[in-house]
């Protein structure tokens, strides 16, 4: 039905997709697997008309299709849900869902009740409880993702390309999405799907195509593969246990948070963090995890409560205060609060700690270049050069660059908000080992993660938040996923 024939794509001299041929059958769920930078997103974007291929072409219903724009592809019946979300923040949920396909009345005026109704139906199909009149900017990342999916569903597309749709979703939301995928499949819709979560692939996919370094390794039915075999195909080598060994933390309290409150997001949050310790904040979407760590980094100060750091009370008005005290953070919202898209990779990495490479007010370009080169090597960031605009890198490489930026200033407390969201297993393993390395060197890590296995394996203790309050503090060595979830669920 949809076929990629010898498709290839270059970016500025770097071949990101070697000539690749894949065919997609009607009514199948076809997973594209591979590490970051393997070419999955690129392949999808070519199929969706977002990129023009440099070689080969796309065949659609047996004819050569030359999609000049995403709109062309959409008209033909191919919709894409992007990994980097593209909502319009000041429109409502209903307006976003029906964008470009607004139900219109006789005089081309938008039929508001019909628009709202349509949005409600689509959201219901996803079992999502989102008010269609809310402004997009008030939604959480997970809710935004759901809206994006609803939008694609609404196009009645024959092929839906989903790039990491579950990266930001909670367990229930994922389950709901899977049920809608099953319904779509029954209708004969083709789903092309990428993910970094192994369990999902085997639950969902009929066939799996594996890409590595821009090359198609092979396509086979999911039933003929198992997770270990799949990982081996993806990375080209066998991965040992990706979670490094934890060492016990010290007794020295580094951070002490007491009664931190900012209504309505969270209240009376208290916990401690020792040197050498990793603490994970767990909880459902909207439990207030991101808000709490944002307060500790000064991004969105709390209205009451105390933060003591290295034994002294800390007044945080903005991130500069936090950085000066020795607190660094990698934010969840990579695009909005992380990347400076127009600056090069290197300049993004040195942005926070630029002072270290300055004589007086002037930048010492040599020292900066040396630091960049060593960090790019240390974090194995793949880029054509340190001056390549960071927006052109893959998600995993962007994330590693932001982690490098945070660590360059040598903070004592590192806050990581969803550090492995939407990145591949290889990059994940590197970030995991970086986290343990930090703990071993006497620093402390405050981790927010929606992936429970990750939180349980990395952290010493888990602070579970429920609706903005601390529900439990668990020892990670004895807790299991079930216990954490029980505390996280609203009673």
């Amino acid at each position, binding site marked *: 039905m949809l076929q990629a024939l010898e498709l290839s794509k270059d970016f*500025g001299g*770097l071949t990101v997709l070697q000539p690749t041929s894949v065919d997609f059958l009607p009514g199948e769920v076809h997973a594209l697997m591979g590490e970051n930078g393997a070419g999955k997103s690129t392949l999808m974007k070519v199929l969706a008309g977002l990129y023009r291929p440099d070689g080969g072409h796309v065949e659609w219903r047996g004819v050569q299709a030359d999609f000049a724009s995403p709109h062309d592809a959409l008209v033909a019946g191919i919709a894409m849900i992007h990994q980097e979300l593209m909502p319009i923040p000041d429109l409502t949920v209903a307006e976003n869902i029906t964008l470009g396909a607004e139900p219109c009345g006789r005089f081309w005026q938008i039929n508001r009740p019909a628009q709202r109704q349509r949005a409600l139906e689509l959201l219901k199909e996803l079992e999502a409880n989102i008010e269609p009149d809310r402004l997009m900017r008030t939604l959480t990342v997970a809710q935004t993702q759901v809206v994006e999916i609803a939008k694609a569903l609404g196009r009645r597309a024959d092929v839906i390309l989903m790039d990491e749709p579950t990266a930001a979703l909670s367990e229930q939301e994922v389950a709901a999405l899977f049920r809608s995928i099953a319904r779509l499949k029954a209708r004969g819709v083709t789903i092309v799907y990428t993910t970094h979560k192994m369990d999902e692939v085997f639950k969902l996919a009929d066939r799996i195509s594996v890409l590595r370094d821009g090359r198609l390794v092979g396509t086979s039915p999911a039933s003929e593969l198992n997770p270990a075999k799949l990982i081996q195909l993806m990375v080209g080598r066998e991965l040992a246990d990706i979670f490094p060994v934890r060492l016990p933390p010290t007794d020295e309290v580094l951070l002490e948070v007491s009664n931190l409150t900012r209504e309505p997001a969270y209240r009376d949050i208290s916990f401690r963090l020792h040197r050498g310790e990793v603490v994970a904040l767990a909880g459902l979407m909207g439990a207030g995890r991101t808000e709490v760590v944002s307060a500790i980094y000064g991004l969105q100060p709390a209205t009451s409560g105390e933060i003591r750091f290295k034994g002294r009370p800390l007044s945080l008005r903005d991130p*500069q205060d936090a950085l000066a005290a020795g607190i660094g953070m990698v934010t969840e919202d990579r695009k909005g609060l992380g990347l400076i*898209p127009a*600056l090069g990779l290197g*300049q993004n990495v040195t942005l926070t700690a*630029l002072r270290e490479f300055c004589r007086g007010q002037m*930048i010492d370009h040599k020292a900066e270049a040396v630091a960049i080169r060593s960090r790019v090597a240390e974090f194995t960031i793949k880029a054509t*050069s340190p001056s390549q*605009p960071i927006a052109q890198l893959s998600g995993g490489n962007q994330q590693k660059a932001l982690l490098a930026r945070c660590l360059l200033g040598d903070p004592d407390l590192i806050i990581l908000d969803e550090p492995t969201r939407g990145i591949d297993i290889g990059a994940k393993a590197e970030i995991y080992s970086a986290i343990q390395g930090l703990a071993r060197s006497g620093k402390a890590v405050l981790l927010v993660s929606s992936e429970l296995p990750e939180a349980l394996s990395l952290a010493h203790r888990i602070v579970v938040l429920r609706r903005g309050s601390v529900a439990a503090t668990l020892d990670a060595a004895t807790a299991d996923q079930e216990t954490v979830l029980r505390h996280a669920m609203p009673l």
Partner: protein
Amino acid sequence: MPALDRHLLHRFGLLLVILAVGLGLSFVTDTFLSVANLTNVARQVSINGILAVGVTFVLLTAGVDLSLGSVVALSGVACATFAHPGDHTVFIPIAVGLLTGAACGLVNGVLVTRGGVAPFIVTLGMMTIARGLALIFSGGRPVANMSSELTSLAGDFLGVPIPVLCFASVATGAWFFLRNFRLGRHIYAVGGNENAARAAGVPVERVKLFAYGLCGLLTGLAGVVLAARITTGQPNAGQAYELDAIAAVVIGGTSLAGGVGTITGTLLGVLLIGEINNGLDLMGVSSYFQAVIKGVIIVGAVWLDRRQSRS
């Protein structure tokens, strides 16, 4: 190195346009390519050039400054008021002019950062306020009778017009600053993604304040140079100067959305506009056509340039 290549191509493209227009002009007129005329072009672009360099800083932070022309007039009037022969040494009126400009810029900056008012509105307000103040201080009349020390600022130094020297040093200084100073890097970061810059610990407010203040200071300098050139402080001088300056900066590849742009680009943009103005006069093109041709060339240059950098 694709990023670098694109920049080279970008500048190369604009340079080609400038050379092509120049080549055309030297065929059509027999005077364009003379030392005297090229000196002329340099002299005439220097005021717009100083303004364009200043406003580059503001545009890089994703702001805008519409008050340039009015602040030029106000600074010129302020400078001329203190420049009557025998009143003060020549440094006083120069300092007064520069400080007037800087003060206007800082007011813009404070309102944008602390007041949270959109730069378009703040500087639109400053545009009429500064014009009004210029008229009030001058009583609506040109402030004449300026000392020869000050008007000699429009003369030559070792055969090079002093306004050109001012422009050249301002441009060189700005280029060096943006490249080598921490604050310069911060300006790009703030314009590229303000929230991310704040989260990365960049003092966003201070950076913006600096950009507006510096733009004001350079506008003050342009006011002083203009007053010296026309030997009066004219309250109605500088009408629509901001548009020429912003046009030059945008032609030079600076993004109105902020975060992208260079001083070399601005320099080329200024040269292209100056070249067109001079060429049209030399060819004796009628006033009506001049306006149309100028507009077409400005939009065309940007269009060509963007098309090239996209492919």
